[in-house]
């Protein structure tokens, strides 16, 4: 029982990270209908920036704040200078650019900081709660994520800029007609997505360690989370992220349990990623719009 709770707690903790990545993906998707495959690598690059800031003597939170600001700027610049010229181009061109960005950030990080694995400090105390059920860093991860999600929700729900961004994502033509600078809203969306990724990266780095491949599987899980919740629904994506986090840990838990009881290895830690991919395929087959997504019908 204690082990089960432990697995759920750690599932929620990693789920928090998947939720962030899923949200970043959904933000860009709802505005542009494109999936940013480079989202994970951008987050990884941001995490290196954070590490660099800490190396130069900044404390964790100051370094993170600087990283978030810088990542926001990088996101805006990528939209303005790389994606803007592609407006109206075919989906395939955008996909190629996203994959190009992925490769660029990957090699850039490897080139600047080398491919060797680095330790990344956690800002949270290492004490555990509830007799070892959940660790300090795990609680911190969830808390930071929830605070960030709350801030984002308030921004979109209660500010006029947030409203303008939602309007621009929903109906760019009408948004222009009421004076919304749609192009800038897209750039802002990219900035926000990059900033969310930066937080996710800095939160997960103490667990997975800092190296250029650190976000590869996280991105896949985030993608799974976004699809489970519905790629068009930010709230759904966050829920999906947490759900995927818990499911992957439960899979490992029940796999171990069956092995102990029956002595047969069916499924375990090694198949976590497989399970994530099975989730993606199942959802896409059974309910393409996701659990909370809207079914979009087009008149032809």
């Amino acid at each position, binding site marked *: 029982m204690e082990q089960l709770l432990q697995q759920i707690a750690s599932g929620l903790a990693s789920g928090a990270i998947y939720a962030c990545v899923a949200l970043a993906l959904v933000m860009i998707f709802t505005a542009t209908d494109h999936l940013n495959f480079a989202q994970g690598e951008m987050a990884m690059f941001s995490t290196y920036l954070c590490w660099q800031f800490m190396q130069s003597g900044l404390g964790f939170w100051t370094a993170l704040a600087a990283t978030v600001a810088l990542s926001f700027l990088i996101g805006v610049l990528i939209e303005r200078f790389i994606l803007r010229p592609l407006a109206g181009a075919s989906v395939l061109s955008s996909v190629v650019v996203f994959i190009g960005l992925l490769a660029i950030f990957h090699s850039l990080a490897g080139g600047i900081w080398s491919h060797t694995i680095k330790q990344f400090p956690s800002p949270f105390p290492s004490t555990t709660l509830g007799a070892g059920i959940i660790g300090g860093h795990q609680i911190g991860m969830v808390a930071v994520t929830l605070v960030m999600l709350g801030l984002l929700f308030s921004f979109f729900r209660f500010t*006029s800029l947030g*409203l303008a961004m939602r309007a621009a994502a929903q*109906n760019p*033509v*009408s*948004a*222009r*007609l*009421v004076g919304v600078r749609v192009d800038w809203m897209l750039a802002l969306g990219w900035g926000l997505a990059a900033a969310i990724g930066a937080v996710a990266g800095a939160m997960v780095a103490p667990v997975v360690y800092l190296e250029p491949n650190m976000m590869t599987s996280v991105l896949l899980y985030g993608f799974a989370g976004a699809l489970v919740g519905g790629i068009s629904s930010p709230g759904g994506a966050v829920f999906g992220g947490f759900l995927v986090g818990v499911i992957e840990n439960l899979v490992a838990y029940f796999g171990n349990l069956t092995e102990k009881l029956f002595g047969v290895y069916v499924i375990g830690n090694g198949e976590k990623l497989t399970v994530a991919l099975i989730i993606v395929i199942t959802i896409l087959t059974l309910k393409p719009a996701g659990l909370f997504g*809207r079914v979009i019908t087009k008149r032809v």
Partner: protein
Amino acid sequence: MAALLEVEGLKAYYGASEALHGIGFTLAQGGITTILGANGAGKTTCLRALAGMVRRLGSIRFDGRAIERLATEDIARLGVAHVPEGRGTFTGLTVDENLRVAAHTRRDAAAVRDDLERVFAYFPRLKERVAQQAGTLSGGEQQMLAIGRALMLRPRLMLLDEPSFGLAPLVVQEIFRIMRRINEEAGVSVLLVEQNAALALDLASEAYVLETGTVVLHGRAADVKKDEGIRKSYLGY
């Protein structure tokens, strides 16, 4: 009366094909002008060209200022509110948000609230549905919302594209009555494109008739209504 909008040699393009072949017209301050014409004559294109939604050439002066090179959002910010064909509702936003988004750059919360109240005074039905998702509104209510949203821009000129489209005659009459009030009380000039020529000529004081991208007739609405050719082609009697 000083001219609010002066258009000269306006051409508009969809890709390489020219849809407007250099039209010119003038709108007086405070008036209601209608553009009549058959399907494909270029009425909608004309409004879209004024709002900067299609590639265009020629001269457009709004209140003495050249706007033919401005982007759609900047034209809207100057006070030219385009109410598009099909209404362009933000279906996933609430009625309140649909209206407020048009005031998103304004910091004067009290004045925005006043403007909202003004919209609700014209369209009490929107007030009843203020927290509802705009996609759940009826067609008539969505048309009211589109006009209300345009009003939130505090426009000096409203470009109305087919407000009667797909609506029951009673609803259309209601909307046209309110448009007259908006024109008279708020001093908003109106450029109206409408299939229902009889209704449009009743509301408007001036009329232009477009045929295949050129102006073929211009005059006071009352005179245009009596024109035999117009009566036969557009009024059907």
